[in-house]
């Protein structure tokens, strides 16, 4: 493998070159009893209810401030499983690599996946690698599927949400989207904003261990930002959501970048932010416990579920006015002035 400096079509042929790539990079990096069998699939045992989630990662640029596509591919799926109230254990990993990708870059991504998976406590147990012709991909696309047992102490379901429940977020919003934006061609601006990509499985499970079924819902606020999650919840449960602009956790630098680019941080993507909807009685304790974890250091209650204005998210503005937070249509676009 080290004889090549770039990935070529041969590496996806299924022949000797594929074998070489798998043996020298994939199996070597992710070695575990399941993968070492080198079978087409793996047989695992998971007790009780199982949560499964899949996601594809196509981000550009693949290396960005605060992370890379590999780290994202693990954290993203791990978090989706965790948001089901489960502790992720196993991950599938599929690559679609564009012909011409530097082996050096591929290795960086693979090693980052390994490191992140270790942090999350998940094992890669099956996978796939395909190579497409130059121009038919964007260096590398990754799909991961996560599996994990649901914590029986909890019960995460929209049906548990009731009027008066509090809405808590764990961290600063809009970091990931603004970090990526700062590196896009034509939009580059100088900042030290880093992606917030991280795994939320331990903090989410700790809360269930402590508060059990009083945690009513988890959702991670990725694409579409906090606004997407809140508008979906309001619509699904047929209740209202009210949030307070002044309580939104927003880093000063990110707030400034959003101002300059004319973007609304509510709609900007996150990769390490989740929303917990919890019984009002435990809200303060949830915030306090979250703040003990570095991933919840900026945890704050931003609002509540209301009987008024069902299916609508209303934000009380900093100056005491009210406005609707509507679902985003397409991508947020840079403005003229």
């Amino acid at each position, binding site marked *: 493998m080290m004889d090549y400096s770039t990935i070529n079509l041969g590496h996806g042929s299924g022949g000797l070159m594929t074998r070489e790539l798998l043996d020298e990079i994939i199996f070597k990096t992710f070695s575990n009893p399941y993968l070492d069998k080198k079978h087409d699939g793996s047989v695992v045992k998971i007790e009780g209810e199982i949560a499964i989630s899949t996601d594809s990662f196509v981000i550009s640029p693949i290396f960005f401030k605060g992370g890379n596509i590999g780290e994202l591919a693990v954290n993203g799926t791990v978090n989706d499983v965790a948001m089901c109230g489960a502790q992720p254990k196993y991950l599938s990993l599929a690559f679609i690599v564009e012909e011409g990708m530097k082996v050096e870059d591929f290795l960086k991504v693979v090693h980052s996946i390994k490191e992140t998976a270790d942090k999350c406590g998940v094992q890669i147990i099956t996978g796939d690698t395909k190579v497409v012709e130059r121009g038919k991909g964007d260096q590398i696309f990754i799909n991961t599927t996560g599996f994990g047992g649901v914590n029986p102490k909890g019960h995460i379901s929209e049906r548990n949400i009731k009027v008066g429940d509090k809405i808590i977020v764990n961290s600063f919003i809009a970091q990931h989207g603004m970090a990526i934006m700062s590196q896009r061609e034509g939009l580059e601006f100088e900042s030290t904003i880093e992606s917030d990509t991280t795994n939320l499985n331990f903090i989410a499970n700790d809360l269930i261990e402590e508060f059990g079924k009083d945690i009513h819902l988890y959702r991670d606020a990725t694409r579409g930002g906090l606004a997407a999650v809140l508008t979906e919840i309001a619509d699904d449960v047929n209740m209202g959501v009210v949030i307070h602009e002044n309580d939104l956790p927003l880093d000063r630098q990110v707030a400034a970048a959003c101002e300059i680019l004319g973007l609304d941080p509510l709609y900007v993507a996150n990769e390490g932010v989740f929303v917990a909807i919890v019984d009002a009685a435990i809200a303060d304790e949830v915030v306090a416990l979250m703040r003990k974890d570095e991933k919840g250091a900026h945890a704050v209650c931003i609002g509540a579920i209301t009987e008024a*204005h069902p299916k*609508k998210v209303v934000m009380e*503005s900093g*100056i005491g*006015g*009210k406005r609707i937070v*509507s679902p985003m249509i397409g991508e947020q*676009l840079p403005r*003229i*002035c």
Partner: protein
Amino acid sequence: MKYLSEYRNLEATKAYLDLIAAKVTQPWKIMEICGGQTHGLVRNGILDLLPPEVQMIHGPGCPVCVTPLSLIDKAIELMDQGVIVCSFGDMIRVPGSKKSLLEAKADGGDLRILYSPIEAVKIAKNNPDKEVVFFAVGFETTAPANALSVLHAQKEGLKNYSILVSHVLVPPAMEAILDDKFCDIDAFLGAGHVCAIMGYEEYHSLAEKYRIPIIITGFEPLDLVHGIYMAVCQLEAGKKEVENQYARAVKEEGNLAAKKVIHQVFEVGNREWRGIGEIPNSGYKLREAFAAFDAEVKFDIENIKVPESSACIAGEILRGIKKPKECPAFGTTCNPSNPLGAPMVSSEGACAAYYHFSNNEI
């Protein structure tokens, strides 16, 4: 944040709202010129906090909204010819006669979304075998940067860079609105950013001729309520003057360096406004000396002309005659995913403001 949080202060904003309520004795209609101001009013919930006597009328100051349909078709024609078209983000979802720039991109066109036209010059430099066109829309605010991009390209000796110009000017639009027989506006909030570039010397004659107060106003909640308060004070006192609320950014003479660049590259000419029609001397066109940078001349697209959609009442919205919710298509056949006209798409369009932030009663 310095110069931001102070202007979003709850107590200060409330104090002005109380002053407005105490001062007002009769109904007044105040038009905010700029779409950015419209959004500021709606997204901060200010419209509902004003006393019922003060009615805000939304003005034509959305550059995307007033860009004629034919210009979008011209940009798409350029993409079809293999030109790299660079645009501000707001423009790309606005429907042309057949499709939007975004749809043209999906069909294989090369579209780049930029914040600055200077980036487009870089793209031209890096792609010497391709033609690069910047879609130069906007009011006086964006004119200096667009003019500067032409000067940069000239200095670099680039032959593959040009701009598709659709620049419009605020004062002629204000006059067109005031000349309209349906117009019943009592005062203007002038567009702060435009005046930061151009100053407000030319507004004095407008205020005098039409006997109307003009308050140059900023965009933050405190700016807006302060500007409205200043307008109400003048109206109640029977004054008709130009005042500057946005003094931290606007000087009477404007930004002289920016104005110099504009006048070096552009000259005033007639312009067609979407929904309003042609207004004499209401826009910029490239000076003869810079004809080589004029995409309309270079690519022979001058003759592309298309009629406006009949279902969209953008013209009445932009002239302040109707409000978005008075349009039968609002929120039904016309919404941001399927817009009939530009005011529903642009981040500064009045219809989009109403749709996103107050589409139904709270």
